[in-house]
């Protein structure tokens, strides 16, 4: 299995989910880096990394952000339940390698020791320049791109966003095909 192909597969399958979202509501949000739940697929360390990246992509403002909305829980459940094992292991390798190279570059042992500005630099480098090469000789644009796609998709599928931002109504009762915006 080609690693890039695995990421592409996951991206395509993730993109095909419609109208769904994390099972947990805002009320059960988790703001600290200490996980109060057990991921099915990712390691706790990986979830911390994903949460940090997701929160940079979709930050807490006057409305909930990625961590408050438990987006990583949705992604963990999705990958666990829906992704073929060969694609799972490639994704796992990619995330492990990426966190290792970041810690090594920054000369740190734990993600907790990195501030958001540092993490944002990696996100920005790879999203802005698809050919950006890390110190280990690898490029991670595709994995950052996938993480962003997963963040956006799962964000739009939360109860909070669907009902408050996207106008989702469980029982519309009628159809109007010509509504003024």
């Amino acid at each position: 299995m080609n690693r890039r192909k695995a990421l592409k597969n996951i991206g395509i399958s993730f993109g095909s989910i419609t109208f769904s979202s994390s099972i947990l509501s805002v009320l059960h949000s988790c703001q600290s880096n200490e996980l109060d739940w057990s991921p099915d697929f990712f390691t706790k360390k990986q979830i911390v990394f994903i949460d940090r990246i997701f929160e940079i992509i979709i930050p807490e403002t006057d409305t909930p952000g990625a961590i408050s909305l438990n987006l990583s829980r949705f992604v963990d459940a999705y990958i666990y339940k829906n992704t073929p094992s060969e694609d799972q292991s490639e994704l796992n390798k990619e995330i492990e390698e990426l966190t290792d190279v970041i810690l090594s570059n920054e000369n740190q042992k734990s993600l907790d020791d990195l501030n958001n500005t540092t993490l944002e630099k990696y996100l920005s480098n790879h999203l802005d320049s698809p050919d950006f090469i890390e110190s280990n000789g690898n490029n991670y644009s595709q994995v950052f791109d996938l993480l962003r796609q997963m963040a956006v998709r799962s964000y739009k599928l939360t109860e909070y966003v669907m009902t408050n931002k996207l106008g989702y109504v469980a029982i519309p009762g009628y159809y109007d095909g010509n509504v003024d915006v």
Partner: protein
Amino acid sequence: MENKFDAIVVGTGISGGWAAKELTEKGLKTLVLERGRMINHIDDYHTANMDPWDFKGGDTITQDAYKRQPKQSRTGYVNTESSRHFFVDDLEHPYNDDKNKFNWIRGYHVGGRSLTWGRHTYRLSEFDFEANLKDGIAVDWPIRYKDIAPWYDYVEQYIGVQGRYEGLPQFPDGKFLKPFELNVLENHMRESISKNFNDGRILSNARTAHITEGTKPGLGRVTCQYRNRCMRGCPYGAYFSSNSSTLPAAEATGNMTLMPNSIVHEIIYDEDKKRATGVRVIDAENNQSYEYYAKVIFLCSSAIASTSILMQSKSNRFPNGMGNDSGELGHNLMDHHFQTGAYGSFDGFKNKTTYGRKPAGFFIPRFRNIGGATNRKDFIRGYGYQGGASRGSKSIASSKEELAAYGKKFKDIIVQEGGWSGSMGAFGEILPYHDNQMTLDYNKLDKWGLPTVTFDAKIRENEIAMRKDMKQQAIEMLERSGFKNVTGTGSADNYVFGNGIHEMGTARMGRNPKTSILNGNNQIHSVKNVYVTDGACMTSSGNQNPSITYMALTARAANHAVEELNKQNI
């Protein structure tokens, strides 16, 4: 329990439900046999009221589904978490398609696929009933449009069909409730297509079996609530299913005995009387065998299953399967080929959006080979498009244009109103090729010791040529309606048979017992008290979604059966 009845109906789907209703309402004590479990209307729709966020990790086809339902899953569009309980476990219900891949999508439970059907409802037209005779292909239909038209009227009024009157001979109007309205972009497409093409093609509202005004008979059937969750079973009974409509009607007569978990595998034939006398049944749960007897038998278990039962019904008179004097049983297998068309984006109507989720979009009826300039040299018959236009939220790509790759601004952009898009995909006719067939493999038995079905069917030159046109015309209609980034989808020669879930033929109707299995009343030519009224009976496929035709043929056949019983002809 009593084992003698006036009538036996095998199957409870689209056709079986109608047979049960008609026969019981006409006073026949009727045993209705279903191989799967009971599904009660509303009570057993356990996902119907689940909101999107109630599905952990999304409402998707899971890896577990791929393991247990590998063939149901590989269509990519049927068995998500919210509906997978309405599709069979392929490991428990195997079939063989080693030579040519065939997706046989089944629902083994009371109501069958009437719970999960696409609900599109289009009458066959005179073009379809005359087609085989005119083209010199296969055999002539033993009926014409006028024979079935009153029965289309009858079932449409009972089940509730919404649609728009268009007055086109290739797209016969029916008895319609007010249509689901086209949205602002779909209306624009309707105008553009009529203006830009001079071959008479139109874009109309999709016609579907949904209630859009008032109520219909059954278990509290009321108007659609625009949730678009039909595949899970509708708690409002707003779309037609056996469970909400025909089976409750049959139940209300007091004449129906409904038995789930009852696998019919053989029809019993009496050599002296030259009639069928009953059916042999295996209890799906405890493997016990039973026999039930009746004066008339309706096979309505879906095309492949009904033919499979006939093939297993061997006797001295019928060594190759009941009614198979012609040798045509199992042959002339058809489907509709689809999964080709086009999609594109649309820049206008920025100040317009929609409210509610209507469960149907538009339909472009057949505009090829209906006379004059519409006739083609590269293929015969025709196709129609289903499609829709909608507006969603902004994508990551549009956030890039606004120079926000992530962060606060990005977060705001991705929930804003995005652009409009539209798509259409065609359903085309597959000709009745003798070599497209199903057979039984007695070396590979299922868990009840019954032979498994083997498929061998593929599309050929006519369909491949048609598919090229299906894609090209979709592209042209979108482009001439002002769409941008128009992209064609699907390939011309790569279509998996069965994907249309319109499998039909294999026990065709015809005028001559030497070349067909059934007569013009859906009776087996040589066993007049056995009627086959599901998709097995089809002589050609047309390009229209076929369920309404099965309902009309079933009601017509039930009426015929009761008349014949009263005249003591059967």
